[in-house]
C-alpha cells in the first residue's frame, strides 16, 4: 500500500430497516446520523460537511442539514444513483486532503417500500427520456435484463451461474439478524421463481425496502479523537458512462473498469490482497458484470468465477457479507450500506458472518441503469 492515511470512516449506522410505515426520510437519516456520530464519539457540532443524495426535495442537502441543525461549511448533494455514497466518500477524502473540513456526515434515507413509490409511470416524458419511456421497459430491472441477455449471448453465461450469486448472498443474510430475507434458497428456487424481465426472475432482483444509513468521515487528526478504530480511505474512483441504457457503450462492461482501476491504483493494492468485497447487487447480473469490470476475472469469465458458491460464507471470495441488496435490505439507493458493512468487517464486529482477519476491503457502488460506478478501497491499521 502506498496511499497516505488522510481520512477515515469513524462511524457507521443503519436506521430502522425493512418496512417503516409512518417514518419519513428525514427521521430515518436523523436516526442513523445520531447513531453513527455517537459510535464515533463526535458531537453534532463537530460536523462541518454534509453529504446526502435523494429526490425528496429540490435541495436534499439543505433540507437535511436544516432538520439536523447543521450549518455546514461544505456540502455535496451529488446524485449518481446508488453509487452516490461511494462517490461521497471519495469527495469527502478529497476535501479533507485539501483542508476544507474535518468531519463529514454522509446520510441516506428512503421510504420507498411504505410509499409504494416504485414504478410510477409519468404522463409525459421530456428530454432524452422520451426515446425510452414510451416503450414500457420497467426500470431499472428491464435495463439490467438487457445487459444479462447480451452477456449470455456473448459469453454463454447461464441463469444457473447468476443464481449462484443469489444463493450465496442469502447464506450471508442468514447470518445477519438485520437481514429481511434469511431463509436459505436453492439454485432451483431462483430458476423457478416467477419471471420479471427475462432472463431475470424474482430472486435475481433486489428487495424493495425502507431504510437509512449514515457514515462519518474524519480527517486523520479528527480520527484520533474517535472512539472507533479508523477505517482508512486508501483509494477511490468514480465515473459514469451513460444515463439511459440504450446509450451504454457495451452492455457487458461497467464503469467499474475505470473507477476500480483508479481506486486500486490510488490505494496501491492488488486484487489478491483484498480480504472482503462489497459489490452493489441490485440484480445478480450487476455483480457478475462488476466482478469482470473490476478485473477479478476476465471478460466473460464472471459466470465461472461465481460458480460452486465461491462467494458464500466459507468460500474463498467473501462478498456481500451482510446479505446484500438481494436479501438484507434495499431502500432504492443501496450504496451506503456497502460502506457500513465494509467498515464493520474491517473493525471485526460482524460476529457469525465475520471474515477472519479482514484488513482490506473493496466497495463498489453502481447507480442508475449500470450508469455510474464509484469504488472505494478501505483498510484498517
Amino acid at each position, binding site marked *: 500500500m502506498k496511499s497516505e492515511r488522510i481520512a477515515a470512516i469513524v462511524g457507521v449506522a443503519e436506521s430502522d430497516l425493512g418496512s417503516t410505515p409512518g417514518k419519513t426520510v428525514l427521521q430515518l437519516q436523523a436516526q442513523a446520523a445520531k447513531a453513527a456520530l455517537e459510535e464515533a464519539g463526535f458531537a453534532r457540532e463537530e460536523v462541518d460537511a454534509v453529504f446526502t443524495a435523494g429526490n425528496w426535495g429540490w435541495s436534499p442537502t439543505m433540507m437535511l442539514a436544516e432538520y439536523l441543525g447543521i450549518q455546514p461549511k461544505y456540502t455535496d448533494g451529488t446524485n449518481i444513483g446508488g453509487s452516490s455514497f461511494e462517490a461521497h466518500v471519495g469527495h469527502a477524502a478529497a476535501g479533507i486532503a485539501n483542508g476544507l473540513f474535518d468531519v463529514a456526515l454522509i446520510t441516506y434515507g428512503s421510504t420507498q417500500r411504505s410509499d409504494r413509490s416504485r*414504478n*410510477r*409511470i*409519468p*404522463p*409525459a*416524458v*421530456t*428530454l*432524452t427520456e*422520451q*426515446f*425510452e*419511456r*414510451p*416503450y*414500457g*421497459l*420497467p426500470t431499472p430491472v*428491464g435495463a439490467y*435484463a*438487457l*445487459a444479462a*441477455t*447480451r452477456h449470455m*449471448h456473448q459469453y454463454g453465461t447461464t441463469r444457473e451461474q447468476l443464481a449462484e450469486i443469489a444463493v450465496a448472498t442469502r447464506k450471508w443474510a442468514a447470518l445477519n439478524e438485520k437481514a429481511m430475507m434469511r431463509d436459505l434458497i436453492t439454485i432451483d428456487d431462483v430458476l423457478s421463481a*416467477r*419471471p*420479471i*424481465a*427475462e*432472463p*431475470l426472475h424474482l430472486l435475481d432482483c433486489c428487495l424493495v425496502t425502507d431504510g437509512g444509513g449514515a457514515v462519518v468521515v474524519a480527517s486523520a487528526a479528527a480520527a484520533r479523537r474517535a472512539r472507533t478504530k479508523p477505517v482508512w480511505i486508501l483509494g477511490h474512483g468514480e465515473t459514469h458512462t451513460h444515463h*439511459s*441504457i*440504450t*446509450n451504454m457503450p457495451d*452492455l457487458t462492461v461497467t464503469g467499474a473498469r475505470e473507477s476500480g482501476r483508479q481506486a486500486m491504483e490510488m490505494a496501491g493494492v492488488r486484487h489478491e490482497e483484498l480480504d472482503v468485497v462489497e459489490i452493489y447487487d441490485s440484480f445478480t447480473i450487476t455483480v457478475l458484470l462488476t466482478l469482470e469490470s473490476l478485473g477479478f476475472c476476465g471478460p466473460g469469465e464472471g459466470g465461472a468465477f461465481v460458480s460452486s458458491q465461491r462467494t458464500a460464507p466459507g468460500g474463498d471470495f467473501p462478498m456481500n457479507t451482510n446479505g446484500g441488496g438481494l436479501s438484507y435490505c434495499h431502500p432504492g439507493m443501496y450504496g451506503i450500506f456497502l460502506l457500513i458493512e465494509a467498515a464493520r468487517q474491517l473493525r471485526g464486529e460482524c460476529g457469525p458472518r465475520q471474515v477472519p482477519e479482514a484488513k482490506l476491503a473493496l466497495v463498489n457502488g453502481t447507480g442508475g441503469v449500470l450508469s455510474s460506478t464509484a469504488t472505494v478501497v478501505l483498510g484498517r491499521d
Partner: protein
Amino acid sequence: MSNGRPIPVRDGDSTPFWNGVDQHELRIQQCQACAAYVFYPRSICPHCFSDQLIWNVSSGRGRIYSYTVVHRSFGPFEQEAPFVVAIVELEEGVRMMTRIVGPASQVKVDAPVRVTYERVDDDLTLPYFQLEETR
C-alpha cells in the same frame, strides 16, 4: 387520447424525429464533420463535438443488440405484458430502444429486423421493429 402511456414531449431536438415517425419515416442525424450517425437527436455531435448535424432517413433495417421479455410491468403497460423490449442497432450504427412485434420465442440477439410503425393510441405512433423472417 392517451391511455396513460407516457407521451414524448417534442422539443428543439426531437420534433423532426417524431414528425418523421408520424409520416412513417425513421429520421436519424448525421454529423457533417465526422460523418458519424447520431441517435437520439441532439444539437452537438457526441463523437467530435461539431454542431453541424443534418437529418437523414434511415434504411430502417438493423439487428437486435439485446432484448428482454417483460412479464411484470406497471401502469398503462401492465395489461400488455408479456412484451418484448429491445435495443436495435441500425445499419447506420446507432442504437435505439424499441419493441419487437411478433412471437417472443423467435426473438434472438443479432436477429435482423425492420422498422414498422405502431399507432399505440390516437396521439402517438412509435417505431417498432419486426423480425425479417416473419415478414
